[in-house]
């Protein structure tokens, strides 16, 4: 019905379209910049897309769907893969029956993340092949290649994209659309899917044999492609690169031949060796860790990596030119722009003013409210990862001197609480600090920072259809926490201050739910009610 069309879309939109076009039965994930729009777009295209409470659950749902023989995609940002690492490593052993494509969006330069970890390491560590597209055309094409690889070899496939793939719009053409296949009959296979040690030992051998087959496939695969120099005369420089780095390199070095790796694990080492032999100098251009350079050098191929200073931040054409020139001079710091800040009218503002005024030690978490660290609030002392506010706060409570321990407050948003805050509360009642503790759940009824996504506490699904709404206070009370309060801090700032003081003074584990909707979410909901697309 759709036919072949020329489009200008972001990498995220291209992935969603590719998934819809190749009959993906299910898309699961947890929102995280820069990956979020994939499932939203997939849903708009009529695909079955759903947000899970966190990436671990999302991947488990994906593994189950793929065990059932369905084409499945799971989406997350790079740090989400840490959360999903447990199922990833063993799903690598079990393999899958349908297709399982795990999309992981890295954020070199940390436009909106707490670290710039390099997910390519996960492919090696887990033993799962990895594809890396360089633009929207490849995001579209490689996604379907990932589905094909997954089905052909019975393996999960990691699909690594980065900020500049996710959020750059480039022109591409689509293929025809095929409908999802019908559900398959379940066939029991315990040796394959039940990882008790006896079966897992066999599965590990199978995994290594499978990777060897995939490596051989990669040696001849079109996705590992050579772009020849456009300059006249003999080419003395060879470049090995992948993803967006390969695109920068093509622009920065027309004098070079470029081996662009579409599959970065397993590496086509023979192809790389053959390529490297042709040049006086072979340089590896890559963002983040020297993953390719290390692996290629370890295989005995003489290549040059980038200087250490280019491990930090994103690459661009200018930086690639500097790497080529061996320039390790200090880079001029770009002028500082205006830092982001909590919106005018954001309900978090009054909370952080109070925490500041009461001189609390604030164990923070991931979300808009992390901006509470900046002036004029300057009211956050730690922020590590999703859900860490509670565990870190408890650690501080256990070991600080009493006077300081009594000032510790854990601050966590509603979506982050659903993601990984619940087990923190279990810890709080199980290993209760002598001074008690105060957990402040900032419930603005949305996943605000990533662009207002729904979650199990909002009462709506990804496509805004109604869902069971988990009541935070009931959940908290069910754990045996008696001191539970719900308050609108904007309406009753003084009351909140008094309540917080009282909770800090007693020795109880206390939970205060500061509930007031995000002002941006209210606007969006109003627009949705009017049946219009929210205009951003």
């Amino acid at each position: 019905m759709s036919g072949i069309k020329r489009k200008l879309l972001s990498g995220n939109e291209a992935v969603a379209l590719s998934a819809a076009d190749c009959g993906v039965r299910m898309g699961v994930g947890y929102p995280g910049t820069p990956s979020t729009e994939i499932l939203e777009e997939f849903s708009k295209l009529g695909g079955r897309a759903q947000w899970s409470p966190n990436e671990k659950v999302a991947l488990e749902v994906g593994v189950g769907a793929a065990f059932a023989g369905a084409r499945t995609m799971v989406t997350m940002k790079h740090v989400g893969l840490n959360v999903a690492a447990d199922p990833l490593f063993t799903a690598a052993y079990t393999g899958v029956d349908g297709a399982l494509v795990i999309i992981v969006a890295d954020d070199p330069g940390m436009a909106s993340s707490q670290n710039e970890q390099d997910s390519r390491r996960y492919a090696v560590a887990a033993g799962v092949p990895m594809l890396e597209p360089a633009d929207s055309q490849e995001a579209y094409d490689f996604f379907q290649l990932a589905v094909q690889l997954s089905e052909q070899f019975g393996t999960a496939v990691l699909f690594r994209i980065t900020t500049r793939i996710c959020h750059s719009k480039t022109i591409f053409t689509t293929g025809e659309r095929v409908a999802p296949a019908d559900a398959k009959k379940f066939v029991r296979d315990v040796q394959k899917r039940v990882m008790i040690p006896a079966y897992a030992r066999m599965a590990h051998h199978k995994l290594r044999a499978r990777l060897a087959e995939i490596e051989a496939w990669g040696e001849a695969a079109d996705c590992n492609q050579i772009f020849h120099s456009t300059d006249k005369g003999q080419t003395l420089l060879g470049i090995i690169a992948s993803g967006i780095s390969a695109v920068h390199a093509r622009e920065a070095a027309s004098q070079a031949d470029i081996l662009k790796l579409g599959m970065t694990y397993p590496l086509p080492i023979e192809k790389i060796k053959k390529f490297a032999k042709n040049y006086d100098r072979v340089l590896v251009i890559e963002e983040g860790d020297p993953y390719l350079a290390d692996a290629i050098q370890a295989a005995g191929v003489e290549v040059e990596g980038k200087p250490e200073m280019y491990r930090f931040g994103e690459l661009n054409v200018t930086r690639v030119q500097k790497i080529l020139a061996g320039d390790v001079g200090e880079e001029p710091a770009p002028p500082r722009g205006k830092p982001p800040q909590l919106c005018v009218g954001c309900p978090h503002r009054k909370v952080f003013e109070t925490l500041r005024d009461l001189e609390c030690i604030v164990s923070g978490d991931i979300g808009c409210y992390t901006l509470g660290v900046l002036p004029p609030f300057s009211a956050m002392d730690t922020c590590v990862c999703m859900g860490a506010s509670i565990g870190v706060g408890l650690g501080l409570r256990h070991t600080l001197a009493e006077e300081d321990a009594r000032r510790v407050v854990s601050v966590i948003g509603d979506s982050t609480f659903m993601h990984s805050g619940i087990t923190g509360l279990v810890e709080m009642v199980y290993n209760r600090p002598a001074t008690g503790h105060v957990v402040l759940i900032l419930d603005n009824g949305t996943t605000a920072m990533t662009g207002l996504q729904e979650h199990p506490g909002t009462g709506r699904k990804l496509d805004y259809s109604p869902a069971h709404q988990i009541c935070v206070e009931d959940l908290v009370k069910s754990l045996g926490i008696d001191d539970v309060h719900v308050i609108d801090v904007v309406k009753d700032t003084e009351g909140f201050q008094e309540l917080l003081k009282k909770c800090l003074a007693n020795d109880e584990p206390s939970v205060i739910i500061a509930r007031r909707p995000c002002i941006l979410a209210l606007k969006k909901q109003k627009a949705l009610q009017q049946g219009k697309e929210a205009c951003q």
Partner: protein
Amino acid sequence: MKNGITNVIVAGLGGQGVLKCSDILSAAIFHAGWNIKKAEVHGMSQRGGSVACDIRFSKDAEVLSPMVPAGQADYLLVLSEDQIDNNLHHLRKDGLLLKPDRIDADKLENARCLNVALLGVLSKEFEIGDKIWHDAIRSQLPENLHDVNIAAFEYGRKN
């Protein structure tokens, strides 16, 4: 212009419509049948902080990197007066800076259309017809905002 590629940077503050303005520009270039790439950053930066968007295009040359190389912007469109200083380094020597003071905000039916009005000023630099621009505006905005934005665009284009 280097290698036949035009580099544009649209900058401003989160909420001003930097992304929307660059989406309309991109749509127009795309519909004109030219090669184009556009890069933007989401998330943290959108909370009222500085936002910038790169658009690179050419009638016939292949556009490779989606990001404008350092100091190579041919056009810098800035939506907020206080965002000029921190973005000026993007502009190449002899590049064109379009500032908010090019538009008399009182002449706009809705001050929030400054982004589209400034795009109207920029539009004069490129050989793209009115219809393509208007269609691009319509393709990127909900229907109730079409007329007010096309009016703002035309005000800028005739400015």
